[in-house]
């Protein structure tokens, strides 16, 4: 029998006759959440978590019960699909009694894992979202005071404190002020040490991302940061506890300020030449030849080089060698003063 060819999220996949869309997704290495499905049992279409979008068909069919067909185009993670799954799982969770912590299946529960995958992080309750970096949900706080001590002992900010509420010490801010009014540096050190979900980053550190350590490009402290990279893009950064200059600390710029500029659509991506006041892309070869030709025309006292305190040592070394050995001038400087 001939195999069936279809696409899942734009990727081609081949499956044998009789396979379901769910089987095809598995073959393509695409994860679709399931709860009622079990490989030994017949499809039931009960939980409705495995829904997908199929081009040309209305509604959201369950992938476990839909046979794969030649030429099908399947999308598993559209906003519509995601929203539907959240609603479906929300209903399941509402009818699911008890606290996880008291359940014998705690930490070994498919429902728990799915909820972590599918549900947006709960923000209803008390969550304070008074800043763009992290949220505070004191219903989940266990009053361990780690954040308070971190903020006081290491950061010296004293932004979060123990205050008295109904005669009990409670973690919070003085007079319950929003964090930006407390002298908070938004360093995130308190979030790092919080043992529960009381303090969480708005952009969570993605699980399973590739992790690469490098040095922060902002100030001269030289903090070593661990970057989480997904699909070639920086998704999060956190301080490296083994970084010799920073010992597990960082600041708001290093932690939250690197990915966006690195991946900015405004980055220069090709050599440009100014023609009648308009910048036009040219090839590297042409650019380099014309620049070299240009510099050759000038005497040593007619040229100058400005290097940068943001570049590497190697970049700066080559820049000063260029000034001295190629242009024959010592007129090279950088903004050492700033």
């Amino acid at each position, binding site marked *: 029998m001939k195999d069936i060819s279809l696409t899942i999220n734009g990727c081609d996949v081949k499956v044998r006759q009789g396979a379901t869309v769910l089987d095809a997704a598995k073959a393509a290495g695409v994860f679709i959440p399931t709860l009622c499905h079990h490989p030994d049992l017949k499809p039931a279409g009960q939980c409705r978590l495995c829904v997908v979008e199929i081009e040309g068909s209305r509604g959201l069919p369950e992938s476990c019960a839909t046979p794969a067909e030649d030429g099908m185009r399947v999308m598993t993670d559209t906003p519509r699909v995601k929203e539907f799954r959240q609603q479906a799982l929300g209903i399941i969770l509402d009818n699911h009694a008890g606290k996880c912590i008291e359940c014998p299946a705690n930490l070994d529960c498919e429902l728990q894992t799915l909820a972590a995958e599918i549900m947006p992080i709960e923000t209803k309750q008390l969550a304070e979202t008074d800043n763009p970096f992290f949220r505070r949900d004191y219903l989940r706080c266990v009053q361990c005071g780690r954040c308070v001590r971190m903020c006081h002992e290491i950061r010296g900010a004293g932004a979060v404190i123990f205050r008295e509420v109904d005669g009990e010490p409670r973690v919070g801010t003085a007079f319950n002020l929003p964090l930006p009014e407390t002298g908070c540096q938004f360093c995130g050190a308190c979030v790092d040490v919080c043992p529960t979900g009381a303090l969480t980053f708005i952009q969570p550190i993605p699980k399973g991302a590739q992790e690469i350590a490098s040095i922060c490009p902002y100030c001269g402290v030289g903090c070593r940061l661990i970057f989480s990279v997904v699909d070639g893009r920086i998704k999060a950064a956190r301080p490296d506890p083994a970084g010799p*200059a920073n010992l597990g600390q960082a600041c708001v710029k290093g932690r939250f*300020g690197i990915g966006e500029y690195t991946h900015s659509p405004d980055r*220069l991506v090709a050599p440009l030449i100014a023609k009648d006041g308009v910048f036009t892309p040219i090839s590297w070869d042409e650019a380099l030849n014309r620049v070299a030709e240009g510099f050759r025309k000038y005497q040593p006292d007619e040229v100058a080089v400005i290097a940068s305190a943001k570049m590497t040592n190697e970049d700066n070394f080559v820049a000063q060698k260029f000034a001295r050995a190629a242009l024959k001038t010592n007129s090279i400087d950088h903004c050492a003063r700033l």
Partner: protein
Amino acid sequence: MAGLAKTFGSGAMTNTLEDIAESKCIFAIGTNTTQTHPVTGTRIRRAVMNGARLIVANPLEIPMAKYASLFLQLRPGTDLALIMSMARVIVDEGLADMTYVKARCENFAAFAESLKAYDLDFVSETTGVSQEKIRDAARMYAETDPAAIIYSMGITQHSHGTDNVLALGNLALLTGNVGIRGGGVNPLRGQNNVQGACDMGALPNVYSGYQPVTDQQVKEKFEQVWGVSGLSTEVGLTLPQMLQKIDAGKIKALYLIGENPALSEPNIKHVTETLKKLELFVAQDIFQNESTVSAHFILPAQAAMEKEGTFTSTERRVQLLNRVVEPPGEARPDWWITAEIAKRMGAKGFNYSASADVLKEINAVTPSYAGITPKRLKSGDAPHWPCPSEDHPGTPILHTRTFTRGKGFFAPISYKGPAELPDEAFPFVLTTDRSLFQFHTATMSGRSAALNEMWGRQRVRISPATAKELGVADGDMVKVSSRRGEAQARAMVTPKVVDKIVVMDFHFAEANANLLTNPACDPMSGIPEFKVCAVRVQKV
């Protein structure tokens, strides 16, 4: 960093960040450390938690003032008077470490003579700090061992910045605080690799490792290693001098790599016009900016997270960068672009195939970096220079036995105030500050939505009394003008600023403080007076 080089023979931090924890007294002057070097702020905080005393001297009530044992809120530009008067109190009250002074320093007599000019009446009047506080600070610094000095741009960005640094060097020599754990004089460098750019010789007077261009032997060494002849022994131009010569039509071609002088230099309106006069202007950067728009060629560089190579942090520590993500489009490493231009000009010695090749050459020609090899860094080490060989552990503390220049030099200094003082026409003092949430000209940090949400615009910060005098309320639009230009932005009324002072930053193109600042430079370091100029403020 010309001052420290004169006093000790080296301009870098004498001690390390880790070492701050060992200090029993920290004198932090002209640095808003928790905002500009936040993680160094945590080191200071750890020391204070361990019982160290903290003396903060700053025109602004900065966050560190909260946990300082002493806070001296001095008038902008009067640091020199404060520091020298502290030295005078130390000498007058017999608190100097004369054994150390005699054994390790020179020129004490001339220095002691120059202290006569700094009597407490005059200094207290000039700085606005009470005599009692000055005396307390001097005693606390002299009597607590070891004591460290930490400073930053609030000390150097003055027309007499070098004198400020010399004065701090004097104070440390006087109390025997140089060359010991927990002591030292520690300039915190602004940008991530300022230290490295200086170490590598991106300066008009030295090759890598501070080898003078005027030294015949040094010249011959480089000619031999590089296989070239005719290297110049004449000191080149500093950045402000370059701009003057471009303006005068003497410099006709400029290669600008990764900087934005049309926003970061004083009196930027003039800088922008100057750059337009160039016949050949080649810019290399990761973004278009206020300077590159005038260029004839723009070459796309890679960002830090796309690069391999090394950075040298403020504590002379050399660290390895790893490539975190791939560069966009055709962006190339800066060293590669420069080397390609050189090769196409017919220059020899630019055949590198990786940044590690460049580091090997740095090792070969730079004695202080000789032992900081690619192999060693790859193994996870991050040593402090000087590190003369691969088996040398690196040097966390400088000048432990002798100074780099031999003896520590006491500098006699006569008092100089700011180059421009307030008068009837311009009655207020403008000083520049930085925000925790933005960096430099915000080319990088300004692209983060979250950081911009926290601090995304210029605010003219004034005290409640100044606001009242001007009839300005918080959030009102005001016009600030100096002899060089004007800028409009919203006012922010805050008790953290002293009366008669106006605080602005230079992060944004809009209403940039450098439309107003004074290009008067320190004669030795070439650093302009960013921290003080006279302005007028009007409600609009």
